[in-house]
């Protein structure tokens, strides 16, 4: 868990960022423990107020539409939300077609280049490899 610039965004933008992640977490109508943990991690990282956190957790139960999320999402908040949407979509080891379509729609909304999602997925895979190296390092100490 490396910190980043999400906390520097204005509060309303952080809220819009978190709302999109709530949508992504519920995209397949299932919520695994891993997805919940990642969602809560990003919620913590966004340093939202307790009241906003409650609202976002409520959005997890009754997710907003993608259109509602995108209406409030622009600029850096949008780009960071796309990055973390890619991370969350890949949390179960697979990005299915529905998830991929949504990621492309977000990228399109933000006006990013066509290859943006592919590049973020490559970056995510590298990140998972980095995490795996960390586990291997810790596990090697037990031997």
């Amino acid at each position, binding site marked *: 868990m490396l*910190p980043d610039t999400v906390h520097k965004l204005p509060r309303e933008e952080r809220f819009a960022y978190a709302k999109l992640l709530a949508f992504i977490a519920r995209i397949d109508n299932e919520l695994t423990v891993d997805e*919940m*943990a990642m969602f809560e991690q990003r919620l913590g*990282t966004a340093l939202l107020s307790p009241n906003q956190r409650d609202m976002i957790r409520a959005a997890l139960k009754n997710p907003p539409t993608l259109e509602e999320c995108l209406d409030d999402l622009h600029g850096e908040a949008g780009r960071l939300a796309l990055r973390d949407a890619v991370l969350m979509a890949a949390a179960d080891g697979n990005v299915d077609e529905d998830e991929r379509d949504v990621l492309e729609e977000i990228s399109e909304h*933000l*006006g990013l280049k066509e290859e943006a999602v592919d590049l973020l997925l490559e*970056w995510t895979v590298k990140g998972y490899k980095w995490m795996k190296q960390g586990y291997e390092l810790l596990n090697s*100490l037990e031997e």
Partner: protein
Amino acid sequence: MFPDPVGLFPLNERLSYAHILVHIAAVDGSLVREEVQAIEGYMGKCLIPPGQRDEIRQGFENPKSFGELLNNISDEILQYALRDAIIVASIDGEYDESEIACIREIASKIDMSDEELSKVFDWVKSGWKWNSGYKKFISKNSQK
């Protein structure tokens, strides 16, 4: 940023884990917003109930005894605490002596050698390098 086994440990272990990270963040006497951000992220990642996070946050001002924390946590989760303590300590750009001393104390508790500890530091450094990589894909310059 990734799913992690820390969330699977019993709640009392996760609370100790979070207290250790708070201690690391606060031990050098200065607390930057990025450290708070990281701790909030870790508390979320290990699914600490919202009601119990306030007690952990109090540790920023009144940290628990580090020795007691180390005595009340299993070696299994302490490995992850060590890994994440190094990340938290690296956030403000340099490792303070007080942070290093705590990290060494954790390493000693789990019988980690200096060489092994050095590898974990290297791993954290490589993570920062990886993490910065996303910026070029989604910077303003990456727009159509």
